[in-house]
């Protein structure tokens, strides 16, 4: 690389508290702003970057070498993307220590850098991600921006915005043809939630988060994961309350868990730096069984405000925050972690089986 291009590619990651990190731009050459969060997963960057829950966020990968196995082919004609969690990159920007331009895998089609370029997402490498993560852990997640040269852009706070409207499906979509009908409320649904349901031979009707489902016929409802602050989605919380009143079997996942909890009458709060990794230990409270789970969330449910009739189901063994609730008698349950994994361990896929048992 000549000296000239090296200077041209210089970029900075600036945190709102004043910390500045210098690095080199890769992927698409543009500046970007968002909330800076870190993920400690070691594999699964194609899945992570396409997870709609990352909408509005600049993602720091703490694993030092990203891009080793390239990016698989994305076939635009596929109904359900095979190797990704949605049909595009969802993050605002990517921060890594080292990116691998040369990749080695039978299924690798393009480099990480190329892929980012295609979706107009900037990446910055050569960053001391360890130091950066320590700052984020100490101060909590922060707003930040990736700046090229003398660019000037404002900070962007995703928590005040209706992010779900940007990632939900445009219209009702039907998948599978099993006899059991599941209504899947798409708040930015990861593909694997859909495929995990379809593997269990059901019909899934995926609908936008503000869909009027009064005329729809279904046996159970799944509320998906999604980005942002759950408390601002008043309409969704109200429609969930209607479902609770009708005693329709419900399963909430991640954002869905927070929405269900808010509908039941609890409060949510923002964690200092969230849980974003594939090795979060959770304990099922009544059986004492432990599972390793995949997680991606900023907000958590406050169980102190859990109304009578409901019980905490799982708890996180790192910080003892809530990881799931259920109703003592009625078929309502929700989990903060991702039973569909992708990326991450598949230990908790039984959550789907338990939910479907209630429908029969």
């Amino acid at each position, binding site marked *: 690389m000549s000296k000239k291009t090296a200077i041209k590619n210089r970029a900075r990651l600036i945190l709102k508290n004043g910390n500045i990190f210098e690095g080199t731009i890769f992927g698409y050459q543009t500046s970007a702003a968002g909330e800076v969060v870190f993920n400690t997963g070691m594999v699964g960057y194609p899945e992570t970057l396409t997870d709609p829950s990352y909408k509005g966020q600049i993602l720091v990968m703490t694993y030092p070498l990203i891009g080793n196995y390239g990016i698989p082919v994305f076939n635009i004609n596929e109904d359900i993307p095979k*190797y990704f969690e949605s049909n595009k990159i969802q993050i605002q920007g990517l921060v890594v220590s080292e990116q691998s331009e040369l990749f080695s895998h*039978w*299924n690798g089609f393009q480099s990480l850098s190329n892929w980012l370029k295609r979706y107009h997402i900037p990446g910055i490498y050569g960053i001391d991600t360890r130091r950066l993560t320590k700052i984020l852990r100490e101060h909590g997640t922060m707003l930040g921006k990736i700046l090229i040269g003398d660019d000037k852009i404002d900070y962007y706070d995703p928590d005040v915005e209706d992010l779900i409207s940007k990632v939900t499906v445009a219209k009702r979509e039907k998948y599978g043809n099993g006899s059991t009908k599941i209504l899947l409320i798409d708040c930015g649904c990861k593909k694997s939630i859909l495929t995990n349901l379809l593997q269990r031979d059901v019909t899934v009707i995926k609908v936008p988060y503000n869909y009027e489902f009064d005329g729809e016929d279904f046996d159970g409802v799944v509320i998906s994961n999604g980005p942002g602050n759950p408390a601002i989605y008043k309409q969704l919380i109200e429609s969930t309350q209607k479902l609770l009143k009708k005693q329709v079997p419900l399963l909430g996942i991640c954002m869905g868990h927070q929405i269900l909890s808010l509908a039941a009458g609890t409060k949510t709060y923002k964690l200092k730096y969230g849980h974003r990794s594939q090795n979060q230990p959770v304990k099922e409270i009544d059986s004492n069984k*432990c599972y390793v789970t995949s997680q991606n969330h900023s907000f958590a449910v406050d169980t102190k405000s859990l109304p009578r009739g409901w019980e905490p189901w799982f708890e996180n063994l790192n910080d003892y925050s809530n990881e799931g609730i259920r109703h003592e008698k009625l078929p309502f349950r929700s989990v903060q972690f991702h039973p569909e994994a*992708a*990326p991450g*361990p598949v230990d908790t896929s039984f959550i789907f089986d338990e939910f479907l048992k209630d429908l029969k």
Partner: protein
Amino acid sequence: MKHKKVLIIGSSALKIGEAGEFDYSGSQAIKALKEERIYTILINPNIATIQTSDYLADKVYLLPINTHYVERVIEKEKPDGIILGFGGQTALNCGLALHREGILKKHKVEVLGTQIETIENTEDRQLFCNKLSEIDVKFPRSNAVNTVEDAVQYAEEIGFPVIIRIAYALGGLGSGICRSKNEVKRIASKALSYSSQILVEEYLEGWKEIEYEVVRDKYDNCITVCNMENIDPMGIHTGESIVVAPSQTLTNNEYHKLREIAIRTIRHLGIVGECNIQYALDPKSEE
């Protein structure tokens, strides 16, 4: 607490397949027992190990690991439990012998952690393959034979190259790769001089070599501590190749498919404690 005095079979001499990791795992086992205020006794003839240090086990016997000496120690110390799973191949073989000769029963010593039946199922390759079939885990086609003629016949059936291994030897002692009938004859007769049973296996040359370290407790909780990828592919002995943790070229699907198989396997076999599971992964598909 049920057990007051526990005997640990140590790591013995270092060799391929029984390297420093067993010194480490034995030391950790001693520490864990001491945390539970259990009196620990260690047998290990290798003075050049950490686990024989004076600050670890309450009592150390620098004696060979065989049934004769272990029985003497049992008679003298009268432990109520014995741990076999932290000393590598020698400790496992010794444990099986102690069981077979009725020494454990005679002195009322209970096996803690991984049980005798599980050791038998994992050490006898035929039983091991049967167990894996029960949970749909794929493994190289393999057959246990007792004569050179049978070895040649099976090798021709599955096609060359094949690998010949000795039963009850995980480290690869006496094993060899055969690309022709003559090589099968040569290596099989040599291998049969070590053991009455040998294995003829399909040889997955050039596949990626991946390992998982899995821990399971008595209550069936499982975690994978890490996975590893050998930088050199199958065909270069693990003892000679560079291994990197974590894996460098596995996708999420591959990583977690293998992790799930590792957990399914350790649960089915009933291992309590640590185990290492090795995979061959086709570099051109998810097989």
